[in-house]
C-alpha cells in the first residue's frame, strides 16, 4: 500500500467499497497483491474479511477500481475463470469426487482428458487419490475439504482465495491440511488471499498480514512486524496484546524513554510516536515474566504485584496482576503449578525495556495502513 499500482500486481484495488443494505461494510483505499505472495486477511468476526475476499473474487458487487493482472475487470465470468475459491465449507456437488474436481476445469474449456489427468494429480497431491470414485456426499469433513482444495489448485488459478478453509475442521485434520496447503502454496508460488481469525494460521501461511477491523485495513505488513508493533489499540488487542496503559512521558534520552504509569516508573526503548507526551503503552502477555521473589532476572522493569485472576485459556493460563497498574501475563500450566500462582498470591512481575511498544493515544485517520 502507498505505492503506485504496478503492472506486476496480480490484484490491485483502489477505493474499493462494499455496501450491504446501503451501509458501507468494507472500505479499502488501496490494496495490492504481488505475484506469488500469500496475503492473510486477519481480523475479528464481522470485521469484513470474508466480504473483502468475496469482492476481490468478484462474487459480490463492489464499487471502485479493481484490476486483475493489470487489466480492469470487464467480463466477470471470464475473470473468475482465472481465479479459484475455497470456502469454509467444502460445498462439493452431489457427484463423484473426480467429477467435482473435473467440472470447474471443463467450465474453463479444458478437455475431459486434461481435466481428469489434472484432477488425479491434485487429488494425489492432497493425499486422497484413492477417493476419486467415491460420491462426494459420503466423505468426512476433512476429506471433503481436501477435495475442495484439490479442485481449486487443479484450476491452476492466477489467484487463489481461501476463506477460512481450515476453520470447520477438527484439530488433527486441520493441522494436516494446513501443512499440506502451506506446502502446495510454497511449491506452486500460487498468489493467494487467505481469510482467517487465527493468528497462528496467519503467521504460518502469510507473507503479509492485513488486519481488518470494522471494514478497514488498519495495518498491513509482515506477520512479525504486525504482531510485534501493532498500529493501533484495536489491532493490538486483536493480535494478542492485552495490556494497554495510558502513560505520561517524563524523560526521553537517546536510549530510553521513561514513563509514568499510575505513579510508577516504566522504562522502554521505544520512542514516543510523533513526540507524543501521553502515549499508550502496550505490553504483550508473553513478554511478562512472573516470579515469586525479586532476586533473579535482568529485566529493567520489576514490580511487586498481586494475582487478581487466574484463567485457563487453552494451552496457556492467563494471569491478571495488579502492580499498581493492571498487567496481564500468559504462563504455562507448569509454571503456574511451580510458582503456586493463585488469586491473592504476591509475586514479582517483570518485563524488558525492549518489549513494550508505544502508540499515539488517538488513532490517526483511516489511512494508517503502512507497507512494512
Amino acid at each position: 500500500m502507498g505505492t503506485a499500482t504496478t503492472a506486476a500486481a496480480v490484484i490491485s484495488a483502489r477505493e474499493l467499497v462494499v455496501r450491504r443494505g446501503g451501509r458501507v461494510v468494507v472500505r479499502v483505499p488501496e490494496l495490492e497483491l504481488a505475484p506469488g505472495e500469500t496475503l492473510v486477511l486477519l481480523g475479528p468476526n464481522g470485521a469484513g474479511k470474508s466480504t473483502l475476499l468475496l469482492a476481490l473474487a468478484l462474487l459480490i458487487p463492489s464499487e471502485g477500481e479493481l484490476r486483475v493482472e493489470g487489466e480492469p475487470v470487464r467480463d466477470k465470468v471470464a475473470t473468475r475463470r482465472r481465479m479459484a475459491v475455497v470456502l469454509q465449507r467444502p460445498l462439493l456437488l452431489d457427484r463423484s469426487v473426480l467429477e467435482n474436481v473435473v467440472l470447474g476445469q471443463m467450465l474453463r474449456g479444458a478437455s475431459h482428458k486434461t481435466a481428469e489427468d489434472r484432477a488425479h494429480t491434485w487429488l494425489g497431491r492432497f493425499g486422497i487419490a484413492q477417493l476419486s470414485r467415491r460420491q462426494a456426499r459420503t466423505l468426512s469433513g476433512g476429506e471433503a475439504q481436501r477435495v475442495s482444495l484439490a479442485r481449486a489448485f487443479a484450476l491452476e488459478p492466477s489467484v487463489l482465495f481461501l476463506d477460512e478453509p481450515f476453520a470447520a475442521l477438527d484439530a488433527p485434520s486441520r493441522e494436516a491440511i494446513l501443512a499440506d496447503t502451506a506446502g502446495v502454496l510454497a511449491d506452486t508460488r500460487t498468489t493467494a488471499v487467505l481469510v482467517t481469525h487465527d493468528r497462528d494460521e496467519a503467521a504460518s501461511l502469510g507473507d503479509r498480514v492485513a488486519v481488518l477491523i470494522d471494514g478497514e485495513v488498519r495495518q498491513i505488513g509482515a506477520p512479525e512486524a504486525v504482531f510485534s508493533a501493532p498500529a493501533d489499540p484495536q489491532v493490538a488487542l486483536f493480535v494478542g496484546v492485552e495490556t494497554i496503559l495510558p502513560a505520561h512521558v517524563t524523560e526521553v534520552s537517546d536510549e530510553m524513554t521513561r514513563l509514568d504509569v499510575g505513579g510508577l516508573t516504566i522504562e522502554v526503548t521505544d520512542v514516543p510516536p510523533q513526540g507524543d507526551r501521553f502515549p499508550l503503552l502496550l505490553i504483550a502477555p508473553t513478554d511478562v515474566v512472573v516470579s515469586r521473589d525479586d532476586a533473579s532476572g535482568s529485566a529493567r522493569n520489576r514490580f511487586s504485584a498481586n494475582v487478581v485472576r487466574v484463567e485457563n485459556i487453552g494451552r496457556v493460563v492467563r494471569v491478571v496482576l495488579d502492580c499498581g497498574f493492571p498487567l496481564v501475563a500468559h504462563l504455562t500450566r507448569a509454571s503456574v503449578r511451580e510458582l503456586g500462582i493463585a488469586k491473592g498470591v504476591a509475586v514479582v512481575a517483570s518485563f524488558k525495556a525492549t518489549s513494550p511498544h508505544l502508540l499515539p493515544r488517538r488513532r490517526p485517520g483511516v489511512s494508517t495502513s503502512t507497507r512494512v
Partner: protein
Amino acid sequence: MDLIAQGLVEAVHRLATLDPEVLDAASASLQVSGIAVLLSLAVGMPAGIALALGAFPGRRLVLALVNTGLGLPPVVVGLVVGVLVWRSGPLGSLDLFCTRGAMILAQFVIALPEVVGLTVVAVQALDPLLRLQIAALGASRAQSLSILASEARLPLLTAAMAGFGAVVSEIGASLLVGCNIKGDTRILTTAIVTEADRGEFGAAFALAAILLALIFAVNLTVTWVQQRPRPL
C-alpha cells in the same frame, strides 16, 4: 358386493382382451397428461429456479399466488380455460374447444403451480453458498442454473411426480374443455364417470384399474430413479 365382484371379473376380461375403448382412453390419458406435465416442467422449473434465487419486487406476492395455485380446483381451471377457448372466446380462433389441445392447456395450468412451488422448495433447500461456489468455478449464469437444477434433481423429480399425479386423476377441467368425445377426448377419468353413469360397472372398474396401474407405474419408475443406491 356382487356389483364389485362382477365389475372386477369384467375388468380382467376387458384388460385381457385389450378392449379398444379402454385402450383408447388409457392412451388419451397418457398423451394429454404426459404432454401437459412435460410442458409444465419446461416452463415451471426455470420459473421455480428464478423465483427461488431471484430478488425482484413482488416476488413474495408471486410465491403466494403459486402456493394458492397448489389448491386450484380443476373444475375452476376448466371453466376459465373453457371460456378462453370457446368459439367466441379470446383463443377461439385456435379452434381448441373439445380437443385434446384444450385439455392439455387446462392440465398444464393445473400442473404448473405444483411444479413451480416444489421447484422453489427444492432449490431453496440447497446451500445458499453453493451458488457462489459454482460461480467461483467459472460457470456462466446459464451453466450455474443447470448445475443447480442437477443438484436439486431428486426433489425436482418429486415435482414432476406431483404434477403428473395432479393432472392424471383430474376430471372437472377435462370434462369441461374436452367434451368427453369417445375415441378422442375421452380419457380414463371421464370414461370412468361415463361408464358408471350408464351402470357399466365392469367397464368402470377396468378403467379404474388401468388408471391406478398407470399412476403406480409412473411413480414406481420415478421413485426407482430417485432412490437407487449410489455406489460408494
